[in-house]
């Protein structure tokens, strides 16, 4: 008799401790945990690989061998300092692997960079005359002194047909192309610049060196 009394007492005590409110809190915590777990599970599924056609439209500026199995795409902003850092490295990597790599530059002008769109327009206007990469290099080399006047004056520096260039630049003929790059980038999950896609997969780079390593590895495996 006494034993059962004690045990009843004990169980009452435990029941007393875990009040309805405590249970309510535990339920909230467990519910949150379940939701977070589901969220992590859904988000950690690998993103499907993007196809070459999606990433490199026919009109995009490219370098290297277009028959190469390995393709690298950069979403970049002419006014972003990190893009400048990467631009010289990218050129090196492409130059080193020019037979085995196809590279494409796509525009991702960020809204806080007021001259990123004009610079992209200038590069495309120069591209019309086959000098996209010359303009690309020229803009990055002089990133600190970018201005509309600077971009207009670039025509002389690069030996472009000035009239044609100015018309393309001022009438924003390539604005649609830039917008398409921007919306594609957003669709592909670009959230910062530069963002690279190697063989359709977004790269998480911690240092410029990582890019070189990733490209060498991809070429070796192909």
């Amino acid at each position, binding site marked *: 008799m006494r034993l059962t009394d004690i045990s009843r007492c004990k169980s009452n005590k435990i029941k007393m*401790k*875990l*009040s309805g*409110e*405590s249970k*309510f*809190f*535990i339920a*909230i*915590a467990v519910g*949150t945990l379940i939701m*977070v777990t589901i969220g992590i599970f859904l988000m950690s599924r690998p993103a499907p690989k993007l196809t070459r056609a999606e990433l490199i439209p026919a009109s995009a500026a490219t370098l290297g061998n277009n028959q190469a199995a390995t393709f690298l795409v950069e979403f970049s902003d002419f006014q972003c300092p990190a893009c400048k850092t990467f631009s010289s490295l990218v050129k090196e990597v492409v130059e080193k692997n020019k037979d085995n790599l196809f590279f494409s530059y796509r525009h991702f002008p*960020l809204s*806080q960079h007021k001259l990123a769109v004009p610079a992209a327009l200038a590069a495309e206007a120069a591209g019309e005359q086959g000098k996209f990469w010359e303009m690309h290099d020229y803009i990055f080399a002089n990133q600190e002194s970018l201005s509309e006047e600077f971009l207009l004056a670039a025509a002389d520096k690069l030996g472009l047909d000035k009239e044609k260039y100015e018309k393309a630049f001022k009438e924003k003929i390539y604005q649609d192309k830039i917008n398409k790059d921007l919306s594609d980038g957003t669709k592909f999950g670009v*959230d*910062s610049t530069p963002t690279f896609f190697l063989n359709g997969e977004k790269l*998480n780079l*911690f240092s410029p060196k990582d890019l070189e390593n990733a490209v060498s590895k991809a070429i070796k495996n192909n």
Partner: protein
Amino acid sequence: MQKKYNRLVFILSLAGIIVAVYVLQSFVRQSSIICVNQGCELVRKSSYSYPFGIPVPAFGLVGYTLLAILTFLRTTSTSKKLLYPILAIAIFGILFVTWFTYMELFVIRAVCTWCAISAVNMYLIFYLTFRMFNETHRHKSV
């Protein structure tokens, strides 16, 4: 009312834990943070985000976890003493987020969305805790 406030502080603490864990894993793995603006990356890479060498979200994680535990404990006991540590953490919390928001705005010059969410969250927790504290004290004096 007390009960309702305590529930809210608990839920907000859980929300704070989630944000802190997400941001902390980015700090530790050095991976990019999904952010509505570009700010999170700039803030993450700033040395000011490591006071005493400890990543900022770690402070948040500890604070929110303690708050969640303490508010839970309040459901198991009627002791009013539990309110003091909750209030102390909330005060430290708002001082911390105010300091960090100031650093973001005027020193790092970039705002991280998650930090802003956490700052608002901490202010809400402080407000609710303050209300709880006030109520208990009113009851005492009556």
